[in-house]
């Protein structure tokens, strides 16, 4: 076969013509250039793969699918939330029954946080949250390691779930800032998160 420039495309599709093509491009600069581009297209295409971190994607997905899980899978989580709420309610009832009532405390306001108390709670919560965020920042590299142990994977899921519960509680609080029950729930969740992070760091140090 006499290989000519118009045979180039046919040769690119047919490996049987590769030898003819190789011979031809030795003496034809135009075809050589086109063949070079043909091979470079595939090599360069691999560099077009885009890789970037999306740290919020999985937590968002998890938060979106979590409510749809069967109730039986959530009993433990719900039990914990109910227990925390019940404990907070019991403490509040105890306080209301035994703390000497001042005239101000006898008003309906006693069931809710006052403006001043709320400011204090928010200030403390912000400081507490910052310290937990710092702890989370320290624990993050341990959690992101590709060879994470099943225990670490479990901790990671627990943290995701706690973050989701914190978000939900905060969102409820936005609608009712003076609700002491919700503030107490939120404090419990933060405490749980802090303990979990501490366990992760202890676990990492022991390995």
């Amino acid at each position: 076969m006499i290989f000519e420039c118009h045979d180039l495309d046919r040769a690119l599709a047919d490996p049987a013509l590769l030898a003819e093509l190789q011979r031809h491009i030795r003496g034809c600069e135009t075809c050589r250039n086109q063949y070079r581009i043909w091979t470079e297209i595939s090599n360069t295409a691999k560099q077009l793969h885009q890789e970037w971190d999306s740290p919020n994607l999985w937590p968002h997905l998890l938060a979106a699918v979590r409510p749809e899980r069967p109730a039986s899978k959530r009993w433990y989580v719900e039990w914990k939330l109910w227990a925390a709420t019940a404990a907070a309610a019991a403490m509040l009832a105890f306080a209301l029954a035994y703390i000497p009532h001042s005239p101000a405390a006898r008003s309906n306001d006693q069931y809710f946080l006052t403006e001043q108390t709320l400011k204090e709670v928010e200030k403390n919560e912000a400081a507490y949250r910052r310290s937990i965020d710092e702890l989370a920042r320290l624990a993050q590299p341990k959690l992101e390691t590709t060879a994470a142990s099943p225990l670490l994977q479990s901790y990671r899921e627990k943290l995701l779930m706690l973050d989701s519960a914190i978000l939900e509680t905060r969102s409820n609080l936005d609608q009712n800032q003076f609700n002491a029950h919700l503030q107490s729930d939120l404090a419990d969740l933060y405490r749980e998160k802090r303990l979990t992070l501490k366990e992760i760091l202890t676990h990492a140090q022991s390995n």
Partner: protein
Amino acid sequence: MTWEIGLPLPFGATSPDNPTDAQLVESCKRGDLRAFEHLYNLHSSKMKSLAYHLLSSRSDAEDAVQETFLKVYKAIGAFHENSALSTWIYRILINCCYDVLRKRQRLAEKPMPPQLPADSKLPLKVALERAILALNDRQRLVFLMFEVEGLKHSEIAGVLEVPEGTSRAWLFEAKLALKKMLTETAK
């Protein structure tokens, strides 16, 4: 297998570390979020990249991937294993991306015009990226899936529901068109 707070349970306590598609599907059908996360870790990186090339926006790509996994989670109960799990997921992703593109058109956003290299001094990577935008939909899809994301022709054929030979033919067409664009601008 249950998924409970505070109880460290390894993924697939009764399965190997690299579960098969069938095991993943079974676990996902039972609502096992660990299996779902495994699925996400397996595919999300390539899916984001493919969606990015189709939508030209990282945030839109992330939205499309999120939407895809939500659909997968909701519909996995109805998934029948007459096709591969990855094939099914990529098909949903491509449909999600086209939904975004259709929405953009409805909102009268101008589709991004194909931008060809203005001069021959552009690095091949940039020139190629721009030339891909000028391909037709099927050529672009096959090229991106095969050459950029490394899917096999058998997988691409499954995603696009065409014979494997058609996938190969579309890839050849795409590369010919790209070669033409790149050699013309190089002149």
